[in-house]
């Protein structure tokens, strides 16, 4: 270490020092990341989800998840290649692996997680060209216990962070190339831009928080273009060329890749699985083993047909009725109507014209149902009509109750519904699967809808169906799924099955809704964004005898926090000083030593790190969904970089106030202190990542006694 400090001069020509530092950090990474990587040999924390999903990929059964597919596909691929057979159930955290080949997947994730460190080193070098700040920044990240813990398991985070680091490295590489005046369409430039675009696409396809890094790269790119534009010695056409190059490589190319990943995802998952119910009938028709696969039905709906109706809400069930009445006190004591997510004979309804039992055009057979028609729906099993009246719905007091009424299909005027195709014209034929239809009660002018609320026991915990006077309710849309009618020619469901693009958009709609649905419940303890930077509370990865607790190295985290504050002060102070100097016509002297790593470039790099931190942290304040501690780690990368840069900046500025010799010594001592503090704190807290056993830390005989610095830490 002292070697490095002596050769503090950060000139890029000093190749040996550069390689030595890089080597030390890589070695450190290798040692820390792969030490005890296969322990504990049971399912830790969210491995239960991602392991399960990897199995589904290997077995090719369809499932639903709120995250995009790339991360899980990579995990599955690594598992497949290393001999995992997809049989282990991954039921709950703590399950022993018992011979299941989880090693490959875990080592794969750890490898990606380990690569973040060298990537950060390269990024910081590209940003600052100062070996000191690069070393400190990377070392802080290396010594963070939380970062280590998070990147060692079968999780999406190591993959996300890896691709994110790739993107950040790429964007600063592109900046250097642009600054050096490289032609926009030169091979080197395009290669780096394509690499950057690919990294962006990968980040976005692992988790949607990748969007923040896309924003960061967008900002950085605009800044690049702005710089090019400001160079009056160059023509405007240069900027336009850069713009075109970047639009293609950073916008079009990532989109193509992103869609391609989804294509793989949808192609691989070809068999019916537990995710079917979240998707529409057309989507399900694509899945082998689903009852809609290879089925056939008439193309249009005709009077007399027996049909099932599926609600268009994601995860919406089938319109259902059964031989049970609403209990006393819940509206009229008539037969219950619900939605039911499983296929069942009680989901069948017969379509009948409103004017009586015979129906219009009974003789000719195929009188087709058209948008705007009045009709009755009769429950096939119980021969009661779908009915609504002025009574409160069981769970939603503002809506009307829907019941089954009448005997053998003879009811009253309240059984008449008007069928309307959403977005269609009056007189359009109603198509199986394709048409989104609405049933509007003729007398009460309300729409048949499902509220999604679960009925109590008397309703067998199926979902409530009600009639909503607000005709704009999004849950009021239904589609015909089964359509049994012999007089019309049948068509294969292949025709209705969604195309790739339709499925792509539907997947996104479902994912978005899934994400929005992740709301904290009343009384649930959730992590709050304000707790993250102060390392307020961690997260247990593994309990029992081998305890692993995700918690940042408090020394690193609190230093990061302090340096964020210091950065704002330094930044404001500098801008004001600069402006004042300009006002009085003075020049500020720079304390640069070596080419390109003067104060200006350090501050600029610090500014971008801070922007990156803010972009990856601030948006969480505005999110309504459930948040977790590990959401902070992308921001942590930027925060550590900022600390590294600013430490060196401050030390250099302090040195100016001391004499040459004394300054040099003080600087070296300070650097040594920083480095040893970081390493020692890592040593202290490393049991959090490598596993603790024995008593909890609030008891005196624990190995972690005395390290419980905050009341809220639970290890």
């Amino acid at each position, binding site marked *: 270490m002292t070697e490095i400090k002596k050769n503090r001069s950060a000139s890029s020509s000093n190749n040996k020092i550069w390689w030595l530092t890089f080597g030390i950090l890589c070695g450190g990474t290798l040692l820390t990341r792969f030490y005890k990587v296969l322990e504990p040999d049971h399912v830790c924390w969210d491995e239960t989800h991602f392991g399960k999903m990897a199995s589904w990929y290997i077995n090719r059964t369809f499932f639903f998840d709120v995250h995009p597919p790339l991360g899980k596909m990579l995990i599955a691929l690594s598992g497949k290649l290393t001999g995992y057979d997809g049989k282990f159930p991954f039921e709950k955290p703590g399950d022993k692996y018992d011979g299941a080949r989880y090693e490959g997947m875990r080592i794969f994730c750890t490898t990606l997680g380990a690569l973040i460190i060298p990537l950060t080193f390269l990024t910081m070098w590209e940003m600052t060209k100062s070996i000191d700040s690069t070393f400190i920044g990377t070392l802080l990240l290396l010594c963070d216990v939380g970062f280590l813990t998070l990147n060692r398991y079968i999780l999406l985070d190591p993959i996300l962070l890896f691709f994110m680091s790739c993107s950040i490295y790429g964007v600063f590489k592109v900046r250097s190339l642009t600054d050096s005046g490289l032609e926009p369409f030169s091979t080197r430039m395009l290669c780096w831009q394509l690499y950057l675009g690919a990294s962006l696409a990968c980040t976005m396809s692992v988790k949607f928080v990748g969007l923040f890094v896309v924003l960061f790269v967008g900002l950085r790119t605009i800044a690049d273009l*702005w710089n090019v*534009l*400001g160079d*009056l010695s160059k023509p*405007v056409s240069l900027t336009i060329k850069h713009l075109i190059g970047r639009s293609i490589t950073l916008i079009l190319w990532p989109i193509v890749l992103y869609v391609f990943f989804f294509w793989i995802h949808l192609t691989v998952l070809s068999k019916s699985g537990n995710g079917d119910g979240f998707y529409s009938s057309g989507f399900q028709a694509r899945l082998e083993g689903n009852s809609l696969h290879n089925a056939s039905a008439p193309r249009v709906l005709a009077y007399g047909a027996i049909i099932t109706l599926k609600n268009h809400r994601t995860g919406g069930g089938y319109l259902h009725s059964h031989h049970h009445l609403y209990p006393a006190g819940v509206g009229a004591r008539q037969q219950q109507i619900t939605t039911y997510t499983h296929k069942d004979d009680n989901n069948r309804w017969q379509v009948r014209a409103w004017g009586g039992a015979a129906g219009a055009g009974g003789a000719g057979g195929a009188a087709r149902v058209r948008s705007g028609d009045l009709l009755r729906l009769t429950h096939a099993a119980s021969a009661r009509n779908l009915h609504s009246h002025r009574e409160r719905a069981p769970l939603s007091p*503002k809506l009307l109750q829907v019941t089954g009424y009448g005997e053998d299909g003879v009811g009253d005027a309240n059984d008449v519904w008007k069928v309307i195709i959403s977005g269609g014209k009056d007189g359009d034929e109603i198509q199986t699967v394709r048409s989104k239809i609405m049933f509007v009660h003729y007398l009460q002018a309300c729409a048949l809808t499902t509220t999604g609320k679960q009925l109590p026991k008397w309703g067998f915990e199926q979902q409530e169906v009600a009639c909503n*006077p*607000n005709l*704009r*309710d999004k849950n009021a849309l239904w589609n015909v799924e089964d359509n049994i009618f012999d007089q019309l020619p049948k068509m294969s469901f292949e025709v209705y099955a969604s195309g790739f693009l339709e499925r792509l958009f539907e997947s996104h709609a479902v994912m978005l809704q899934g994400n929005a649905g992740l709301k904290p*419940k*009343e*009384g*649930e*303890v959730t992590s709050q964004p304000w707790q993250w930077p102060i390392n307020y509370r961690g997260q247990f990865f593994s309990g029992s005898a081998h305890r692993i607790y995700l918690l940042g190295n408090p020394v690193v985290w609190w230093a990061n926090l302090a340096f964020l504050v210091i950065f704002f002060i330094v930044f404001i102070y500098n801008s*004001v000083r600069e*402006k*004042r100097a*300009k*006002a*009085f016509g003075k020049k500020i002297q720079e304390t640069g030593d070596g080419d390109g790593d003067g104060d200006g470039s350090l501050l600029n790099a610090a500014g971008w790190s801070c922007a990156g931190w803010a972009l990856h942290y601030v948006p969480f304040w*505005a999110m*309504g969904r459930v948040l977790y501690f590990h959401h902070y780690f992308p921001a942590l990368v930027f925060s550590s970089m900022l600390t590294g840069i600013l430490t060196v900046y401050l030390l250099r500025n302090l040195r100016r106030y001391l004499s040459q010799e004394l300054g040099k010594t003080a600087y070296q001592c300070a650097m040594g202190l920083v480095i040893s503090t970081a390493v020692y704190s890592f040593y202290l807290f490393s049991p959090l990542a490598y596993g603790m056993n024995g008593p909890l830390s609030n008891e005196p005989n624990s190995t972690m006694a005395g390290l419980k610095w905050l*009341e*809220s830490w*639970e290890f």
Partner: protein
Amino acid sequence: MVLKKSTENKSSKISNKVIALSEPEKGKCSLENASTTCKREVDDGAPAENENETMESMQPIDVGEIIKSVYLTVEIDVVFVGLLLMALCTRLYNLEEPKYIVFDELHYGRYVSLYAKGVFFFDAHPPLGKQMLYLAGQMAGYDGNFTFDRIGSPYTESVPVKALRIVPAICGSLLVPLSYQLMLEISTYQITAFLAAALVLFENCFLAQSRFMLLESIQILFSLFGILCVLKSTRKKNIASVIWLCFGALSLGCCFSIKYSGLYTYYLAIFLIGRQMWKRIDQTESTFKLCLSALWRFFILIFIPLLVYVGVFYAHLSMLPKAGPHDSVMTSAFQASLKGGLASITKGQPLHVSHGSQITLRHSHGRTCWLHSHAHVYPVRYSDARGSSHQQQVTCYSFKDVNNWWIVKRPDQLSLAVSNPPDAIRHGDVVQLLHGITSRALNSHDVAAPVSPQSQEVSCYIDYNVSMPAQNLWHVEIINRESEDSTWDSIRSMVRLIHVDSGSALRYSGRQLPSWGFHQHEVVADKVITHQDTIWNVEEHRYTKAEDRRERERELVSAEMIPTTVTQLSFWEKFLELQYKMISHSPDAPQGHMFASEPAEWPMLVRSIAYWLSPNSNAQVHLIGNLVTWYAGTISVLIFGALLAVYAIRQRRAYVDLPPYAAQKFYDAGCILFLGYWLHYLPYFFMDRTLFLHHYLPAYIFKILLLAYVIDHIFYILCISEKIKPFTHVFILCITIWMAYVIRTYKMFSVLSYGNMDLTEFDLLNLRWKDTWDFILHKKN
């Protein structure tokens, strides 16, 4: 001074008469000033501060002038007065019609009634707006005895409808001349300022919103006035600047004391002052002077609004001394400080909880409920096949009940009677809690809780002899203790009860028990002890006197306390608690309201809101904008954004498009109007609650002004460039035609603001310009 404008801009169509009661010298002087200003513009394009030094301020009395000179200058701007009169005519016309409860008058009316009766209520919005409504009602002698039961029910004679509606109506009227005034500062030509005011005047949504007991028009008035004052302050120097800033801060304080969305205006003002200071940094002023002026500016901008805010709450709390229906939201201490209600029960009860105390334990934060038990046991098996301890249920019950009483007992003492002096329980003591009626002890053990299986079950212990020993010791941890051995006080102390054997804390889990638990709330012992749901406090409290169990039960059932003194709570304690509750209050507004809308739908006016429908005709009131202005506004935002980008890019390439004076104006408009618009609009995208069109109005006023500015700017560009000058007339013609169309639309839709005309189905269909607008039609009988 207005004369200067009209001579300068020959295109100005409106002739202004200035009635200036000023000394002749004064007038001359300002004319001279004006000419020097013009010269300076040509010379070096001086920054706005200098040049606007002499710009008119058409307040009836200019405070800065008074201080500068001994002369009293009174100016009346005819345009200003004319606009005000027109606005008053439209806003006040037939104000007491319809004589029915319209939309949110339901809520605000209720609050006014509660103010009139002095009964405490809780609302998530600050109180100034409601207080203003109340004051108007008070003057007209409203006694608060009308029950606002539902939208559409008729007012009785006892409600002074006109008085209650007059404050918003006047504020809404003032908005028109105020827009004119603000635009005079921002735009180049007077005529565009007039145009802006006319657009506000002929905007149906402002008309409808000002005519009822709603707060938006008051809020917007304060918001615009605040911005105007701050703007004037940035353009003046010395004492005039201070005075304007004080006015601005006052107005902004009022603004966010009406609705919290007023805070966005406040941020805008801070930004404007910050921008002014930032610009002054690179002038050769002494650093000391610069720091000083920055300091006092921010001092004013922070303290005056804060003072207003606190003052408003002070008035609020002192106006509402009585207990009422919303009490249960607040903590016991707060409730006890109100007249009637809890105070009458808890007055005179002993302070220190001691061995033998009979107490009720209230869950302190969030949902109001008391620790409760009853003679029913947990079912042996739950529906998910897990087993229970089959011991007596412990729940959290939201109503007062005799089963909420518990007796505090030290584990080593047998007698329950309170000794003399009482043996007070202190922080850190270990106690048992006996349920008053059943005499069973509060217990917890390693059995999963019924609804939250990750936590431990809490029960009242029944000894079944099944090798499950009683674990009924609880450690008292007083959270707001002053010293390590502080006593456990009723009402005041916040305690956490830690189970001695497991280290878990007694906690309200937030979930409801199924029917076997009578749908009461679940209580568990949770390992995470720092959660705020683990905090409890003693509400009712008395000492056990009788030794005998029967006697004790009788005591519990028939308890009646004799009040002697009131619990005192300082204003600050009350204020902070109220703030905390307002922040943590989650509105249970109905999801999927029929007329709710999304922020993304607002710029295109996709949805309207039905405010009222007459019970016997199709006359109705809707909040709906003037679609012509609305669309033009949206386009103007796009145009302004495009212009901003184009100018920035061209400037980067060192092209100069605008003379410095015009560039200055352009960027000022950008900072005030463009930024103001987004600042009031964007936050709604991140709000997780039911939103309505009227949330857009504070942003919309900035948009209208921006529209006027964009017209002004385009006109200016047409005027200065020689090549396209002939298009000026075409442009004027277009604007005139468009304005005529705006007025026509306004007239067409004003029936929906006044609600004074029966409409046929044909009329409504005629007005339904968009498929997404829902008007209401009575069914034909």
